């Protein structure tokens, strides 16, 4: 599990270089990829389904990137894009296509639905974090305002 996460780190590092992230952001973005993949492997080792594992891993990836974005003033997308890269259902896409060309339409439908669900789960995971951050920011600014007025 740890060695796969390290390889996910290297893979995300490569992706980060391809989308031209530089300096310490690159390292942090790659770390995000390793963290999300480690979370995915950890959760799926407890017999959770792929969709649930991806959902929780995406939440962790989203939280990681939002926290980093606030603390070092870099857009959250920079980290979010890299952190979810290992979760993106490239394999689901491949197996769906493979079942289609082998004429197993039922298996293709199952795999295809799972692939779309995983993509949706990643999206909703990031969405949850994003909304949560907005709420926190809203309350933070309100509290700051009331203290300031008093």
């Amino acid at each position, binding site marked *: 599990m740890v060695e*796969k996460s390290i*390889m*996910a780190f*290297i*893979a995300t590092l*490569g*992706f980060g*270089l*391809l*989308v*031209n*992230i*530089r300096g310490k*952001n690159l390292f942090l973005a790659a770390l995000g990829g390793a963290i999300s*993949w480690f979370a995915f492997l950890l959760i799926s080792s407890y017999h959770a389904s792929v969709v649930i594992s991806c959902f929780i891993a995406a939440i962790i990836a989203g939280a990681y990137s939002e926290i980093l974005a606030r603390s070092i*003033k*870099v*857009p959250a*997308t*920079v980290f*979010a*894009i890299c952190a*979810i*890269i*290992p979760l*993106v259902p*490239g*394999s689901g*896409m*491949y*197996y*769906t*296509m*493979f079942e*289609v*060309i*082998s004429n197993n339409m039922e298996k293709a439908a199952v795999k295809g639905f799972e692939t779309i669900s995983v*993509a949706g789960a*990643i*999206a*909703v995971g*990031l*969405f949850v974090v*994003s*909304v949560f951050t907005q709420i926190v920011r809203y309350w933070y600014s309100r509290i700051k305002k009331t203290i300031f007025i008093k």
Partner: protein
Amino acid sequence: MVDLKRILLIAGETGRIMLENGAETYRVEEVITRISHGLGVHHAESFVTPTGIFVSLTDINNNTLTLVERVKQRSTDLEKITRINNLSRKIGKMAHSIDEVEAELRSIKAIKRLPSKVILPLSAAMAASFAYVYGGSIYDCLAAFMVGGLVRFSTIVLGNARMNDFFINIVGGATAALFALIFHALGVSESIDKVIIGSIMQLVPGLAITNGIRDTITGDLLSGIARSVESFLIAVAIAVGAGIVLKLWIDNFSVWLW
């Protein structure tokens, strides 16, 4: 008196750079208005879609100027986005002259991407590590290393020839499948699927998925739908490319495959 024309050009240019390099819609709109207000425009409004930008600036005497920027090619360069984002924050906090902003914008535009000869081995290494991440053996990594490099080579060549993205991804998927099958037939790799998956991971639309969702959340429904469709089409294109090659191979050389 504010030089509305110059500010408009700067704002439009900034928006275009951001959009071409993969920023979310709300961020582009925010940066355009922030830069315009920072340079002293009375009222700034912008409407951004993935394929074009509309900026409209109004000064204190109700003179309005509008600019349309058409965005044709999109790639990903997160360094440019980070730099522009920082620039717009700085303008918001302290007064900057137009010249300073223009100079900064020029230096951001001059940021170079990695040259092809670096990108090729990098993509190859990325494919190899993804093959391992998804459960391939060391031999699969070796095959994925070469296949990943070949996939990136084909996409670079087609990209230089200004082919459209859909076609590039079909060819990318086809290249991945073809060479994965060849390396398997030659006895280099143990599995075909891990090699193909590892090498197509560099093509998958991770950015389009996240941006599509972010746009939808923030209420830019038009861009959200456009980007979601984009990501779906990219995925279909990769699958179609790989699928055609696999199908042809199975029908004609199935003896070698299993």
